[in-house]
């Protein structure tokens, strides 16, 4: 099976010569959920916004269907179906739920109704301004808005940002369902490591900008100590 999206030797960061993430490689398959894990400051968000084209890469390539994406072009990424749900959600807070979704509607694409089937509780909030939704509803809307764009690669950054664990527990299975039903490749950056591993097929662990682990999620579920070592081992190594 050939990869839907591939990063080859990606250097990501904000200043030339000072990459936050170095030599990042990953292959994403359709319908699979990949958990991108790692301690804070590891560079997970930087990878996400670079792949989505919000930030030009410093080196390396992002390929979709084997074709390289233009550096730092969010539109080029969006055209190829690479869609980001940013950690701050970046909703249009003054617009209603419906308008937020409607803006992303494409001819012949996913309909608002289909998105609401994933998030039924948004249905009764359809006329409410996005800024007045609860945190969980806002996150649903952010994911829903991304789904309107018929993503082939869905990048979800910090789904749990500012949400109570119980809400995260409800949202993650929906993400799994999205991957299965729309056959999109999903990348999940998540603080709640174990919740993320429950729904993921594959896991990549970053520490200090380098990939320290890349393996099936099941392996990490089976032996959590591997992950703890990746988190803690790397940290204490850096301390010395």
């Amino acid at each position, binding site marked *: 099976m050939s990869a839907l999206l591939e990063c080859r030797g990606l250097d990501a960061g904000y200043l030339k010569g000072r990459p936050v993430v170095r030599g990042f490689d990953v292959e994403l398959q359709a319908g699979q959920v990949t958990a991108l894990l790692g301690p804070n400051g590891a560079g997970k968000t930087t990878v996400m916004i670079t792949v989505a084209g919000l930030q030009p890469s410093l080196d390396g390539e992002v390929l979709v269907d084997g074709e390289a994406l233009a550096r730092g072009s969010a539109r080029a990424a969006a*055209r190829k179906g690479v869609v980001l749900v940013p950690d701050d959600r970046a909703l249009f807070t003054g617009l209603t739920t419906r308008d937020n979704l409607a803006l992303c509607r494409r001819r012949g694409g996913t309909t608002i109704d289909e998105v609401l089937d994933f998030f*039924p509780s948004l249905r009764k909030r359809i006329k409410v301004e996005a800024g007045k939704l609860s945190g969980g509803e806002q996150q649903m809307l952010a994911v829903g808005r991304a789904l309107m764009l018929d993503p082939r690669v869905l990048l979800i950054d910090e789904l749990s940002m500012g949400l109570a664990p119980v809400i995260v527990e*409800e949202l993650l299975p929906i993400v799994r369902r999205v991957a299965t039903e729309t056959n999109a490749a999903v990348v999940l950056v998540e603080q709640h490591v174990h919740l993320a591993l429950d729904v993921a097929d594959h896991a990549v662990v970053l520490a200090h900008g380098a990939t320290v682990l890349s393996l099936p999620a099941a392996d990490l579920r089976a032996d959590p100590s591997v992950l703890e070592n990746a988190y803690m081992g790397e940290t204490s190594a850096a301390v010395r």
Partner: protein
Amino acid sequence: MLHIGFLLLGLGSGAVFAALAVALVVTYRSSGVVNFGTGALALLAAYFYAFLRKGELLIPIPGFDRSVPIGGDPGMIPSILITLVISALFGVLLYLVVFRPLRNAAPVAKAVASIGVLLIIQAAIAAQVGTQAQSVAPILPKDVVELFGIRIPVDRVWFAAIIVAVGVLLTLWFRFTRFGLATRAAAESEKGALVSGLSPERIAVANWAISAAVAGLAGILIAPIVPVVPSAYTLFIVPALAAALVGNLTALGPAIAAAFAIGMLQSELTYLQSLWTWLPANGTAQLVPLVVILVFLVFRGRPLPSRGAIVQRSLGRAPRPRNLLIPAVAGTAIAVIALLVTSGGTRAGVIFTLVYAFLGLSWVVVTGYAGQISLAQLALAGVSAFALNRFAEGWGVPFPFAPLLAALAATVIGVLVGLPALRIRGLPVAIVTLALAVAVEALWFRNTDWNGGLGGAPIGAPTLFGIDLGIGSGEAYPRLSFGLMCVVLLLVVGLGVAALRRSRLGAAMLAVRANERSAAAAGIAVSRTKITAFAIGAFIAGIGGALLGYAQTLATADAFTAIGGLGLFATVYIAGVTSLAGGIVAGVLAPGGILYTVLNDLFSLGYWYDIVAGIGLILTVIAEPEGIVGPWHRMVDRLHDRFTQQPERAPEAYDESFLDDAAAVESGGPAVPATPATAAPFGDVVLRVDGLGVRYGGVVAVEDASFDLREGEIVGLIGPNGAGKTTLVDAITGFAPSTGRIELLGRDVAGVKPHRRMWAGMGRTFQGIELYEDLTVEENVSVGQEAGRHGGPHTDWSQDEDYMARLFRVLKLDDVRDRPVRELSQGHKQLVSVARALAGRPRVILLDEPASGLDSTESAWLGRRLRAVRDYGVTILLIDHDMGLVLEVCDRVVVLDLGTVIADGPPAVIRADPKVTAAYLGTTHSPVVTGS
């Protein structure tokens, strides 16, 4: 009845203002630019139209032919359409060339660039077609209809109706079309637009085309009514800005209504000027926008909506002068030698360089240090010059006192104009200062009752102890003694500005410039700091104005025009508005300064000066916010680093190094002195919150919250997202209005301003950290000391050593003291923000999510540091999502849910409390119940 007639006449200018206000709103909403050049766009369109009707196509580029013939007048409607298309294309060009590169810049930087646009258009038109008024054949029916004895000018009514129709159409379009929806969406979150597959740039391009066409329409339709004169049209922007501000730069309806009100009031005042002799003979019309802006800002002001942009560039660094002796001696020597070796016009150039340097320095203080964009410094200089005439010639006040009094008069006006800045920051300050400059020019400098008539207001030569310090006349002009006096005064003022930058007040100004909220949290009196900056800046400008008056031996309106003030602002910005050196270099570049004089002798600059200044201003804003002196400062810094032999350590080397202590703990080494959670017996209540409530509109954010903090306690404040934790902290520290009692050490502080609560012994951090990214760690932290300097109860850590040294040691910040904060990791920034809050020696500190962005190792380490801080007697209220940290570190935990306290007790009890579990884990009232 005549009154109504004049009010109706005002519909014409009201319509222009309305159209320009619409253009301003459209541009601001789509790209965050307050385009000061909107009036200039109308001017351009008016000329295009006028030339088309003469059968010519205007080429507004100096150096080319004025126009090319197009074989006859295309007729009225085609000419209008052609002009509108050209206007729209020009708007697109402006966006692509000037504002697209600035799309991530702060709104103030964009507005400054638009001032460059204004200068370029205005000067280019003046260069190509001169400043003679052009007359244009009527477009709208010119009849006058009499109705109930009122003479109604039909063209004005038509004009008004057209503009109102345009406003209504645009409103409907923005509300009901997909494009309008996309525009509103992109205005709210650019990032959101990008991830939604929308192109904020295409949206901006389309909106720029619309706004430029609307401005162009205004220019075309007003051309037959008001004779086309470059500066008059350009300054239509002031009433238009006033109107747009009434609509908060976002709402079309109120902006249009306000524009008509301003236009009609102006017309009526012009009539009253002739009727009531006690009114000033000139300039009351220009007073209207100023009053509207002031009234609006003072009574209804709220912050302009800002766009959720991805990054925001700051004003350039304001370097701290290291060594004053060498630059002062060298600068003085250069100035004196330049005066000695020159004569005649060139020496005058040196003298004007020195004089304009005062104005440069006044901008450095107000804009460079305090971050307030003032466009009125030249007008304030004018106030001083005209006041000097009054004091010295009118009342015979002797030399050193007359100019000082004059500068004080400028200070008074400067403080008055700075008052709105107390409530509102950023752009409105630029708008109100421009309105002031226009009003003062019209009302005073051009008012023949007060300006000394056609010959200007004479200012005699200054003499001190019988020595003539005047600039002289005839063969003696310019006399050396006047130049030397300027050198001495500039040396004094320059050293004063350097001392200001190094002082606490200077640090406070930079803190205010960087972030007003966190400045207040550091105990800085934000309002007082800003007003002080305005006062100092106005005083320096006043001295410059008095010297300019002496140098010209009279005060004339032409030396102090509002447009001239914009040009000089551009010059200072180009030179480097954030540093002392930039202020001085501004004098060299200023019109009349030495460089100008030399170049003018060689090439005859004429309008090219303004054009180059405009282009330079835009380039400076885009490429080098520190101005011409920026690269020089960086070179000096590098040399300094090399000579002081500081090892160049890669910033990464610092990252996480503060965790050394954690490693020590893991390896069994001695830890910091940290007490177990329940060791210390707690003292008296230091903070009591009683029945606290916060409402935003109809939403209850916090309701009847009550709890106590006892001395030496660490209390955790937890609760699910949206429970109101941050709001509660904001209310306790004075950043959100609240009801109920807040007692700090027995004193009720509810209703007390934030910085005064800090003086009284509080400290806080922010969820977003909110540090001053450009300042070093040490500078950041030392800003926080302000809170401890105003008496009041504070902790005393400093029994045995320097408090700051101990603070840096306890928080393990020693290694990074001299690094700019922007280079630090998230974890380090959190610590710096805690250190800044502690620098004011608070008795109680409220930490808003200090562990966000930290991994579990780091947050455990932070917990131990907080214990260490507590051991020095600081009571801590800790908000965090990291339950591990809260339950581990805190002596007691308060649980907030839906704005009310639902539990309060030791961690073990809280952990077991079913109410708490329900709030966190239960779904009983969780707003997110999926319908499955």
